[in-house]
């Protein structure tokens, strides 16, 4: 190939010279100048052809034509800016929304967890009738027995959450950390960024205490100091040595299923506590890595056997307890997966709608350009060239739309992460990444090709003569085009109906949930957490005394109406569940479990502060302390369930046992039940015991204020500091915030689907309008004839409207049927509403008929205004 190509000009000069020399020679042989020139040109042959041949030789014609097509396409698109803008905007919205939601789904559901071989990781938890069949936390002795008995896992670890306070030169701060057995990092197999993780046996008592920091903590507290390994730090009053720092991408656990998503900042070995030996205390979590070659099914079978053995060995605590093995992936994203997939489905529908709209727009344009295509074909453009040219246009549009869509998606993803509800795990890891980019590129190219090929092929199969004959506006693709259009619109209407029904059902569910009574009065209540250092407050009596003092101090603060403490606050996901014994009730039969309840330890003012109504008897008061008569207050649900026909007042129950037997308490009051586990979650029996009689080192402060709750935060801090200067208070949030957070996910879903549904309705309306307008333009001659023959404008309107309503009816019916068919997928997201709720279906159908009717009405009006003289003349 030539290294430096001669320019076209150079070649043209050579040709010119050739001709001149030939002319000279012919003139010498006697011809006149004109004749000589003519003869010379004749002898040469087609000069232009020769120049073209030169131009084409050795050039990559493909790129050349592409550049030409692109330039032409840009000019053409610029000439109809409204259409171009409409198409690009619609596409951008469709692709942007899809990409944003897809990146969300990808991050939460699809993307693999950032551990080595994450599909070999499983979460273990206990299950059984005791917890109503739901998964329950693990007890440590059980975990130890599992660990000793099984070979189906190569590594196992147990852990629990701990609110840890770090003190030292860098200041005091509290954070959420994890206490774990020594093999935790061996299970996850993520190498540390600095230093090391736990060594085998490092969780044994008496060993020097070590700590592993999170990347965030390392940056925040130690400024990313590379010499941090080996330094000592005081955690909860004990001295620890920092041995390692985890990388920024490491997160374990990925989420606490429930409402709270707080990053774990610190990992320390399991600390000694009473519940390590208590087979009945289910306060731990367990995670394991499958042995090579073992499957989850095998693991499940093995654990079932072990659980049965333990049930035989320890009938008191392990009766009918099973072990559930779930892959970590499923465990993390399991409960949000259906919702997200529904959202993805909604968004894909919207995208299809968008594509349908654009297809119709481009189809109209292709029809209008049929004449142009015919002319170009006649002038020598091959069919493939025509197809290629329209394809370039569509691809250009598609790419522009995709580019704008990606920018929108980027912004949209940021919005989703910022305003998304807290309960979705890994939401903060949502970002546009290669998976999403590939997806977006694929749809846009697909869209471009689809729209390019269909109209181009139809336009290229041109009967030149016929096309040139037909007048511009009435140019059409005939029956096939009309049918295609109608099918598209019916499809659009159907999809809009389905989305609207989905949105309608979700909105109704949302309203139902929002109307539920939480059981307490949320406004103007501030909460906070105080975690007492186990070293300085080892004695339970001191713990109780501390909190009594704090409550007294708080009640003295101006702006505070009342104050209390509890170790289990509604809607926080923190609870104290366990069994209890009812006096006089027969012991549970074999195969049955004893009664279960949530057993908050509260100060006397709790019910007043929380606004929980007293229904019978009395509340707890300051006389209920150690040494006094043991008492309890139960919820109305507990009363109804366990003392159905009698008043529970005066009856006895026990929430704790010693070797001497149950520690009986007398029921002195009944209060209203709260929705402790969430507005939508099933309620459980509640048994309130005085914290003075049953202390806990970790308590939540509850303060009802006169004015704005946020205003008392400094006062709360000051009050706690007055009682103990070294104690910190943290996690301030109002009950209203908690209430809002618990409803956030549902609100988010509902809002999102509603937005999509509105968008879909808009698109469908535009689609109907487009089709009707097109039909009117097509039939303008017929309409002219009718009008000329005496039809009233009203009749013409009716004529057009009728066909429009026929389309609407078809679309609506198809949509209702589709929604009914898909109703099962939505049912898990609904609350208090049936997926086939007739009111919603009817409402949506009516709304659609109205909207579509309005869309069809406009062109029908313009049909009535047709001037028969004009249309009849326009041949």
């Amino acid at each position: 190939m030539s290294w430096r190509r001669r320019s076209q000009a150079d070649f043209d000069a050579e040709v010119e010279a050739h001709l001149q020399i030939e002319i000279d020679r012919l003139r010498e042989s006697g011809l006149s100048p004109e004749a000589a020139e003519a003869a010379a040109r004749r002898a040469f042959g087609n000069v232009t052809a020769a120049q073209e041949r030169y131009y084409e030789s050795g050039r990559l014609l493909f790129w050349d034509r592409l550049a030409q097509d692109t330039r032409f396409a840009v000019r053409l698109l610029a000439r109809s800016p409204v259409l171009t803008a409409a198409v690009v905007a619609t596409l951008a919205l469709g692709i942007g929304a899809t990409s944003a939601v897809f990146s969300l789904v990808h991050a939460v559901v699809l993307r693999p967890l950032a551990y080595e071989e994450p599909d070999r990781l499983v979460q273990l938890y206990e299950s059984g009738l005791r917890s109503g069949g739901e998964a329950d936390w693990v007890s440590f002795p059980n975990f130890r027995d599992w660990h000793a008995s099984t070979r189906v896992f190569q590594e196992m670890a147990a852990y629990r959450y701990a609110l840890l306070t770090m003190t030292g030169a860098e200041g005091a701060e509290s954070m959420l950390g994890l206490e774990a057995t020594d093999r935790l990092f061996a299970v996850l197999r993520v190498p540390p960024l600095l230093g090391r993780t736990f060594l085998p046996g490092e969780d044994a008592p008496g060993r020097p205490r070590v700590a592993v920091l999170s990347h965030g903590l390392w940056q925040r507290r130690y400024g990313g100091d590379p010499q941090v390994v080996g330094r000592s730090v005081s955690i909860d009053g004990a001295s620890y040595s920092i041995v390692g720092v985890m990388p920024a991408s490491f997160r374990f656990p990925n989420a606490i299923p429930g409402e709270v998503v707080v990053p774990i900042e610190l990992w320390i070995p399991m600390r000694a506590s009473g519940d390590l030996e208590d087979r009945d205390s289910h306060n731990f979590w367990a995670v394991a890595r499958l042995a090579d070659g073992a499957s989850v099914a095998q693991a499940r079978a093995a654990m079932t056997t072990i659980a049965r053995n333990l049930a035989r060995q320890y009938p008191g605590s392990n009766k009918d307890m099973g072990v559930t093995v779930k892959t970590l992936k499923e465990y993390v994203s399991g409960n949000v997966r259906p919702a997200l997939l529904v959202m993805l489905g909604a968004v894909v529908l919207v995208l299809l709608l968008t594509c349908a709209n654009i297809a119709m727009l481009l189809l109209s344009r292709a029809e209008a350009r049929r004449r142009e295509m015919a002319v170009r074909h006649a002038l020598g453009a091959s069919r493939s060239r025509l197809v290629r040219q329209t394809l370039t246009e569509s691809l250009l549009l598609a790419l522009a739309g995709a580019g704008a869509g990606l920018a929108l998606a980027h912004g949209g993803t940021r919005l989703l992460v910022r305003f998304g509800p807290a309960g979705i795990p890994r939401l903060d890891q949502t970002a546009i990444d290669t998976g999403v980019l590939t997806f977006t590129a694929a749809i846009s190219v697909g869209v471009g090709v689809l729209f390019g090929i269909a109209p181009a092929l139809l336009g290229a199969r041109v009967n030149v003569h016929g096309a040139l004959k037909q007048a511009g506006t009435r140019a059409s693709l005939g029956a096939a085009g009309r049918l295609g259009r109608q099918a598209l619109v019916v499809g659009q209407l159907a999809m809009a109906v389905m989305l609207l029904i989905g949105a309608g059902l979700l909105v109704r569910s949302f309203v139902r949930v929002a109307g539920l009574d939480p059981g307490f009065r949320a406004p103007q209540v501030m909460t906070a957490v105080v975690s007492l250092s186990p070293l300085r407050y080892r004695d339970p009596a001191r713990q109780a005394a501390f909190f009594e003092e704090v409550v007294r101090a708080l009640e003295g603060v101006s702006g505070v109406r009342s104050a209390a403490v509890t170790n289990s606050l509604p809607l926080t996901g923190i609870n104290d569940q366990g069994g209890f014994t009812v006096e006089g009730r027969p012991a549970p039969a074999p195969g049955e479990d004893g009664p279960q309840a949530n057993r908050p330890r509260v100060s006397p003012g709790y019910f007043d502060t929380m606004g929980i109504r007293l229904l019978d008897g009395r509340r707890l008061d300051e006389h209920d302390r150690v040494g006094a008569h043991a008492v309890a207050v139960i919820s109305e649900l507990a009363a109804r369930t366990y003392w159905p026909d009698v008043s529970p007042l005066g009856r006895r129950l026990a929430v704790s046992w010693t070797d001497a037997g149950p520690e009986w308490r007398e029921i002195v009051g009944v209060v209203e039940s709260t929705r402790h586990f969430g507005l939508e979650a099933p309620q459980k029996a509640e048994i309130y015991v005085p914290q003075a009689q049953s202390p806990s080192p970790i308590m939540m402060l509850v303060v009802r204020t006169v004015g704005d709750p946020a205003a008392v935060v400094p006062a709360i801090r000051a009050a706690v500091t007055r009682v103990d200067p070294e104690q910190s208070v943290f996690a301030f949030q109002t009950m209203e915030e908690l209430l809002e957070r618990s409803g956030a996910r549902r609100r988010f879903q509902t809002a999102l689907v509603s937005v999509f549904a509105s968008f879909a309705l808009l698109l469908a309306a535009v689609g109907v309008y487009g089709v009707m307008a097109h039909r009117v333009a097509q039939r303008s001659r017929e309409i002219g004839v009718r009008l000329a023959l005496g039809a009233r404008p009203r009749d013409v309107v009716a004529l057009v409207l009728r066909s429009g309503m026929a389309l609407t009816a078809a679309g609506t019916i198809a949509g209702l049927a589709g929604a009914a068919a898909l109703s099962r997928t939505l049912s898990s997201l609904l609350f208090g509403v049936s997926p086939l709720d007739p009111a919603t279906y009817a409402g949506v159908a009516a709304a659609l008929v109205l909207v579509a009717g309005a869309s069809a009405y406009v062109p029908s009006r313009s049909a009535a205004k047709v001037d028969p003289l004009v249309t009849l003349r326009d041949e």
Partner: protein
Amino acid sequence: MSTQDDPDRVALLQGTLDVLILRTLVFGPQHGQGIARAILQSSEDVLLVEHGALYPALQRLEAQGWIDAKWGTSSNNRKARFYALTRQGRRQLARETSRWRKMAAAIGRVLGPEPVPR
């Protein structure tokens, strides 16, 4: 090729042009018009070359390094681009010529002697 003025002129096959051009250039550098004329003349007006059709062949030969080109002045003081044989071109010509002669002889044998016009 274009319409023929003279029915006796035989349209040239593609690819044979290369050999003819090389052969013409044996006698010294020549420009495009000169090459066309030369082929017509030495074939006694039998071989018709559309002048324009020469140029793709010339480009091909130039690309393969068998001829070299340079702008110069013609005999009647016109600017023209002159083509000259290179050493490889000469070798190529020898190869092609012998191949052609063999092929012509073979075809002649197949067709048999030309019938004597009556």
